[in-house]
Structures are given as C-alpha cells and as structure tokens.
C-alpha cells in the first residue's frame, strides 16, 4: 500500500525534451516508474528514453491512457502546463518547477476548484512510493520499504529525514514533497488525510518551516482526526530573522506570523514531538515508535 502513486500509475512528463526533464525521465524510469508519454508542443513524433513525445497532454492521454503527469517546464509556462493537465482530466499533476509567479498559482487554484485533479507543488521535489515509482527528482536510493510516511515542505530535508529513517532501520511507504511556495496544491492536511487512510503507514514525519500557518493547522487536524498514528515533527528556521526570505518563496516571517517557535509550540501542544535539531529526526522517530509500541513493526530494514 502507499498513497497517490504506485508502480501501475501511467505517467506523462510535461516538458520532456528539456535537459533536466530528460535526465530525470531516465532516473524515474530506472526506479520503475511507468512513464508512457512525454509532451512538448511541436516535438510530436520524437522519442526520449524510449518514451513517445506528443504535442499536447490531450493527445498523450488519448494515446496512452495516462492518469498522472510531472511538470518540468520553465516557470513562465508552468501554470499553463498544470491547467492543461487538469483540463485533460488527469488524477495527479506534480509540478517541480521553481519560481512560478504567485498570482499564476492563484489563477491555477481558482481554475482547479471543483475539478478532480490533485496538484503537488510547485517548487517541490515530487513524490516517491518506495520500490514502486517516483515523480520528480527525489533520489531513490535513500529509500527502504517500510511503514513510515514522509511529508515535507523542503526538498533536501525530505532526503535528509528519509536517509535518517533508513539509517535507523525504519523503512518508508511514500514520501511527499509538498513544496516551498506560499500558494501550492497539496498541503500538509491534504497529505495527512491520505496517509491516515493508508493502513500500511504506521507513523509519519512532518517537516515544516517558517512562514504561513500550515503546520499549526495540521497540528490541530492531527489532534482531532488522527490520534492513533504517531507523528514526529521538525521545523526549520528557528534562527530566521523576520521579513527575510530564506530561499523558499514561502519561507518568510511576515507580520509576526509564521515563526518556528509558534509552530513548535502548536505541535507540542497536541502531543507531537518535534526533533530538537535536524540531525535528530531519525532518533526522535525511534523514540516515539518505541513509546507507541510500534518500533518492532516499523523496524523493517
């Protein structure tokens, strides 16, 4: 079991003829992802890594029956690509592109309202279901099969946390990088809802950072809806000065809101342990699992 993505998911790569997209198409195929089509307008008929290229998402869907896509197009075209995937009726669009204008994303969200497509990103590393498939740029070799789910706003912290879990012998189900932009698709609560219903996922790591109140909202949701699945938190940016954008567009303390201290407090208040520093994510999870009597079950590798 897993969430969102598995080895049978048929995937389109939007912008497949770009250099980065080509590199990662190869990586995704090697990991086992069922990539059935690529899309770049004007490049229909070409073949990239054995994958046929189409002019439009609609053509690709009609020819292959694909239900998901991963977007690797430049920022100024990213919103359009997401909406094209939505219009074609895909279940899932994952947008890796960084620096998408915020108002483009507000339009995208308005366009997607009431439609069935799930968006992950933009500005995210993507999603990986261990030993089955991955969409995006997450390095696959870090992961071992098991029972811990990973949700993160940051790419490298997704890898760091997953690596620490594997080192500690705690395999994973699915890792979701939800991205570092202020306006995005899937947020913590959306991902938590899916993990809640996945029986294979026994515990979760949730990695947040400064900016916004998504972590606070998630803490409240967990307390009310998922009391029996242990969650370990980590929040980056304790030392971040207010008003400064710390790399991610969404990582900014504005108007006194979105500080790491507030988030840690909100998580602790509902009984969620927060790793004291980034090197202690794995050991914190070990401790929490032992306390919950789930360690033996989760010690899979």
């Amino acid at each position, binding site marked *: 079991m897993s969430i969102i993505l598995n080895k049978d998911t048929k995937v389109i790569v939007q912008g497949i003829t770009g250099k980065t997209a080509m590199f990662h198409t190869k990586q995704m195929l090697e990991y086992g992802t069922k990539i059935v089509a690529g899309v770049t307008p004007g490049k229909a008929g070409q073949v990239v890594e054995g994958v046929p290229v189409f002019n439009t998402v609609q053509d690709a869907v009609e020819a292959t029956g694909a239900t998901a896509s991963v977007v690797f197009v430049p*920022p*100024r075209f990213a919103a359009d690509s997401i909406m094209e995937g939505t219009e074609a009726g895909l279940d899932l669009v994952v947008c890796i592109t960084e*620096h*998408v*204008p*915020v*108002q*483009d*994303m*507000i*339009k995208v*969200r*308005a366009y997607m309202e009431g439609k069935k497509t799930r968006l992950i990103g933009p500005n995210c*590393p993507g999603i990986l279901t261990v030993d089955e498939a991955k969409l995006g*740029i*997450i*390095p696959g070799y*870090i992961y071992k099969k098991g029972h811990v789910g990973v949700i*993160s*706003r*940051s*790419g*490298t*912290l997704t*890898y*760091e946390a997953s*690596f620490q879990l594997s080192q500690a012998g705690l395999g994973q189900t699915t890792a979701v990088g939800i991205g*570092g932009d*202020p*306006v995005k698709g899937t947020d913590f609560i959306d991902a938590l809802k899916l993990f809640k219903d996945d029986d294979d996922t026994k515990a979760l790591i949730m*990695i947040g*950072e*400064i*900016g*916004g*109140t*998504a972590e606070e*909202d998630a803490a409240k949701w967990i307390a009310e809806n998922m009391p029996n699945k242990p969650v370990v938190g*980590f929040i*980056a*940016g*304790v*030392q*971040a*000065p207010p*008003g*400064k954008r*710390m*790399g*991610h*567009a*969404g*990582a900014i303390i504005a*108007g*006194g809101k979105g500080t*790491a201290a507030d988030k840690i407090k909100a998580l602790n208040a509902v009984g969620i342990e927060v790793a004291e*520093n*980034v*090197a*202690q994510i794995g050991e914190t999870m070990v401790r929490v699992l032992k306390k919950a009597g789930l360690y033996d079950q989760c010690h899979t590798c």
Partner: protein
Amino acid sequence: MNIHEYQSKQVLKSFGVNVPNGKPAFTVEEAVEAARGLNSKVTVVKAQIHAGGRGKAGGVKIAKSLDEVKGYAAELLGKVLVTHQTGPEGKKVGRLLIEEGSNIAKEYYLSFVNDRSTAKVVMIGSEEGGMEIEKVAAESPEKIIKEYIDISVGLLPFQATRMAYKMNFKPEVIRKASAVMLKLYDAFIGKDCSQVEINPLVVTAEDDVICLDAKLNFDDSALFRHPDIAELRDETEEDAKERWAAEEGLNYVNLGGDVACMVNGAGLAMATVDILKYYGGDPANFLDVGGSSTPEKIATAFEIMLDGGQSKGIFVNIFGGINRCDVIAEGIQKAAQIIAEKTGSDGIPVPVVVRLEGTNVELGRKILTDNPVKNVIMAPTMEGGAQTIVGLVKEAEKNG
C-alpha cells in the same frame, strides 16, 4: 522586491490612484527646488528607506517654509534611521520625498496581499489607520475587515462598496473610497505585487480620498514580465554580500555572526543555521548553493563567506540529491586555489568542516582525503560536524 515610497506612489499614479503631489530629492538643493515647485503651504520631507516606522524614528518632517525644507533635508540626508523594522544598525537615508502637505480629516488602513491559506487575493481594511496593523489585529480584531477576491473576475464593485461601508467611510466619500480600492487592485494584479499597503489612506477636509503613504512589494518570480519595476531596484538598500550572491545565482542571507555555512537546499540551509546555534555558535549566514552547482559556483560561495573577514569558520553541509558530492569536493579544492591566488596565501584561512552525504558521497570524500586541502576537515556526521566547527571557531576567538 521592495521599492521606495516615492516609487510606489509613481506606480499607483499610473493606475489613476490619488496620491499627493511630490518629487524625490537626492540632495538638499533638489529638495528645496522640489518644494519650490510644489508651492504648498506645508511641505512634508520624508526619508526614503526600505523600512516602516519612519515617522516614529524622526524620518518624517513637516516644513512650513523653504528654509525649513532646507534644514530638514540637510538633517535627514545621510542620517542613519533606526526603526523597529531596520534592526539596531539602522538604515542610511540617501533619498527624500518632498511632498505637499494634506489636510487630513481621518486616517484609514487598506492593503492587498496574496493569502496562502485560501489561495486568493485578499483586501484588508480598517478604520484604524496610521497604526501598525499587527497591533490593531491583536488588540481589536473586529476592526479588521477582509474581502476575498476571486481572481478570475477580479475585485467586484459591490465588494469594494461593502468594504467602504464596513470601514465606516462617511456617505459623501463611499464612492471615492471604493473607486480607489478598485484601482489599487488593478495595480496589485497589473504589476504582480506580493503586497500593496496604504497606511494611511486618508479622507481630506476637502473630501478627497488619497494614499498618503504607499508600500508596494513585488513577487520576484514575476519580475521577468515587469522590466519597468525591476529597474526601480535600489541596490544601496541591500546587503552587499547578499547582492553579490544573488548575481551569482546563490541564495544568501547575512545573519551577522562568525560561523558560516554552505548548504544545498533552502530547508537544510535553514536547519543548518539552527543546528549551529543549537551547539552554541553564532551563525554568519544562510547560504543555499542550489541544485545545480559547479566547482566555480562553490568557489564563489567561499569568497562571499570569507569576504571582509566576517567568517571565522565554515561548515559545509551537503546532502547530495541533484547536487553531486564529487562536484562539491572539487569546488572546495578550486576555492582553496582561487583564494590562495587572490590573497597570495596558501589557501582558505579559516577552518572548514565538511559533511557530505548522498549522491556520489564516496567519490566526494575520496577527492578530499586523497588530496587534502589546508584547513579542511571531514566530518562523519552532521551533528559532529556542527559541534566541531563551533568548537574550532570558539578556540580561534580565545587565541585572538
């Protein structure tokens, strides 16, 4: 991106928004000339810095004659203003806005922002103008009015009218107030703003509705479609190292301390700053070298960290994803060479602790152990590495 108040007002004026007549001035002479041109009974001399709280810090002066304008301009130009937003070091005033005085009857607050939790543009209004809005929100939240806007149809006139009524504008100016709101929304969307804040929006004794102050921030990711806005950047407002890093495609924020760090990925970079502090260090910076590094870029990152002698030690914390550890290792070697050539020394002058993990980690470690670089120490773990660099910097401080 931030711009100055006078620039914000010029942008708003181009959208038909009422702002007081005024002109920027870079010298005392220009200030007097501008005031003469305004020919106003009362002239306001406003320091232009990228920070709020200027009034309280003495950066806004009311002049009743050209002589007074001259005096205030001389006083303010070159002065370092310390406000609650500048930090203790303050900001030096290099420009003034010379503006006609307004006959204020009442002050209001109005702003537009992109709201992350609803993914909508929101208009925020309050009849408590001229105060810090965070303070109003904390003390009397019922006085904060919000209108969420559907971007596919834009701000609707009824929403603007409703906001004007809820903000308690008097009947005579309701139409004027809602008209200003609609124009401000056009500016917000038209220029890809991340924030438009008018504080105060005023009603004058003559029943005009004008933007007495204006603060516009822009979405950096959308500047490619607004070259006119990109040109308004005032580089003197930015930290020199931050500017240098941005030009090189590096994400750098100066934090003022002496333990530097170089990291890949924004999240890990923030977490690295935190772990240095956790072990008692004083972080010098946040530095994300990004996903596609070259040895040359790594070398530049080292130059930036070492510039001006700020850093007494460097922690390199890499989790190779797209970035390969061997490229980082080569970059460290290259940095040592470049620094040696430029300074005529034998390499990097401060201790460097390197933690490598992820893609090609064995190769990266081999490069640095086979050909050791002066002052570079390998750390087997992140935790150990952070503790080591903090210890080495403390030792260096003790030895003077």
